[in-house]
């Protein structure tokens, strides 16, 4: 669809509009990226006093290697995030499937509400309620102990909501004729899912995995409510340090995080673009061969 050639009937000329648009976008991006840039620059500041530049140094990074608290937190967070992502994707795919494929089932409204609510519900509420439930269960049965497992449960709840949204969007856009064709050719429903549906939603499953991984890695409130002694996640370590004031070790962690995320996004975008090109090329070849 081409952009319409708008004739200016108003006070503002098209040129002004264009520069206004560019200016707004530029200012917006500066706003979004300014904190990140500041974090990175000050991570090389040779002074524990914030905002006073005293020379270039990498000592905060070398100090990180010896920072047991942070490293232990990082390791715990990575493990929890991994399991959260895996669980969220499984539950999210099931929920997305239920919402898209099955138009009517008893209690669908409640289901939809429960699936969407964690997206917006304040985390303090989710954290408190989940903790109280787990404590009640623990008092009755002696299980589970508060720790990595309980943190995982909380993150899973949040992750599932996000995963469902992502996968559902893709599932809804799928052409149902492909699955119907497979069934006409004799495939059982499970085969239809694994051989036809799953490959088509594979990319959104991957995005959902990465999204829930990031979410879990970054979570503060749920982790604080649901953690136990000895299970301090990295965000909790950062949060307790940040509460006390400005701390260059946090800047160093931040810079590493930004570098990893930026690389990941660039690589992912490249792979997605390449995937798209290959797919359109294959489909064009198939239609040429078939025709």
């Amino acid at each position, binding site marked *: 669809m081409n952009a319409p050639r708008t004739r200016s009937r108003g006070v503002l000329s098209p040129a002004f509009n264009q520069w206004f648009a560019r200016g707004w976008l530029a200012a917006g991006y500066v706003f979004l990226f*300014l904190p*990140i840039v500041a*974090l990175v620059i000050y991570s090389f500041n040779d002074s524990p006093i914030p905002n006073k530049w005293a020379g270039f140094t990498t000592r905060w990074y070398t100090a990180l290697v010896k920072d047991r608290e942070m490293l232990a937190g990082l390791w715990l967070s990575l493990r929890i995030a991994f399991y959260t992502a895996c669980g969220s994707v499984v539950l999210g795919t099931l929920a997305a499937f239920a919402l898209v494929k099955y138009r009517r089932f008893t209690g669908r409204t409640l289901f939809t509400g429960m699936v969407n609510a964690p997206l917006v519900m304040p985390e*303090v509420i989710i954290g408190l309620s989940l903790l109280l439930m787990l404590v009640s269960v623990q008092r009755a049965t002696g299980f589970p102990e508060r720790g990595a497992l309980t943190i995982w449960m909380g993150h899973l709840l949040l992750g*599932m909501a996000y995963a469902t949204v992502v996968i559902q969007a893709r599932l809804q856009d799928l052409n149902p004729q492909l699955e119907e064709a497979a069934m006409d050719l004799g495939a059982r429903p499970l085969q239809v899912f694994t051989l036809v549906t799953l490959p088509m939603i594979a990319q959104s499953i991957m995005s959902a995995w990465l999204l829930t991984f990031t979410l879990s890695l970054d979570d503060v409130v749920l982790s604080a409510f649901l953690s136990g002694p000895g299970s301090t996640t990295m965000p909790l370590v950062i949060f307790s340090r940040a509460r006390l004031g400005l701390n260059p070790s946090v800047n160093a962690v931040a810079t590493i995080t930004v570098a990893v995320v930026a690389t990941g996004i660039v690589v992912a975008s490249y792979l997605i673009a390449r995937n798209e090109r290959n797919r359109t090329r294959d489909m064009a070849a198939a239609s040429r061969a078939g025709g």
Partner: protein
Amino acid sequence: MKSAMKSATKSLRAMFTRGRTVVIGTPYAWLLVFFLLPFLIVLKISVSEMDGVRFKDVLTFADGLMQLTLKFSNYVFITQDDLYFKTYWSSLIYAASTTFFCLLIGYPFAYFMARAKPRLQPALLMLVMLPFWTSFLLRVYAWKGLLSENGWVADVLTFLRIDHLLLAGGLIPALDRYMNSPFSLVLGMTYTYLPFMILPLYGNLAKMDLRLLEAAQDLGATAFTAFWKVTVPLSKAGIIAGSMLVFIPCVGEFVIPELLGGPQTLMIGRVLWDEFFSNNDWPMASTVAVVMIVLILVPLAIFNRYQAQAQELRR
């Protein structure tokens, strides 16, 4: 032949139904246990009495008498205590302000993104996603640095004499002091939730049929009128989605008020946290949570309805 086909269809349907039970049942059961049940427990504990570290049973049976003991004193306390009321009100105001500023900055942003050259749009989107994927905790922490003494933003604001304006509005405690104030809180929250406003708006605006605008202009509308009478009403769903995605979590925010807020900024999320972690008063924390849920029920219902509508439209 007919009976064989009939039994085949029956077994196929049975298998399908069984699979269907698993597909719907698993997430449903999980949500009931881990989402709904906890809320009911919170409700119960908010009316329970604490006995040391244990909760007294709400329903007791002794001497042939079944007794239901509901302690409503926490709720009474909340309604009577001025501070709680002020805190709830203040949280709603901060959340509304954040939503307003996110809309103010985010709508034009999403609009210009959607009207940019199609070739550029994926890159523009990626640039919005990048901060979103970077830890929000670290970015909020960064604002502590930017707004503290000699921070970049602090220096710029002081240079532009904006602190006089903010001081006059009661948004900062003193000249050149931007941290731990209503200003820093709203700035931090707007910054954090801006992508949540931009993304649904962009999704909505990008799908808009531009020929409608052409038609409006052919009918004699100025660009300005076309915008207000065509674009904005069509993007209403995106506006609502974005606003709810910002407003509802902001009401109960804890991390941002804790890092960027101060003694002046009353937020109910912090109150809940303090009741739970500092006072160890679990019934009180539960009561605070229940009242918070009641406050956000209406926006929650709006959000839920939008989600359901969006689903229907896609079919």
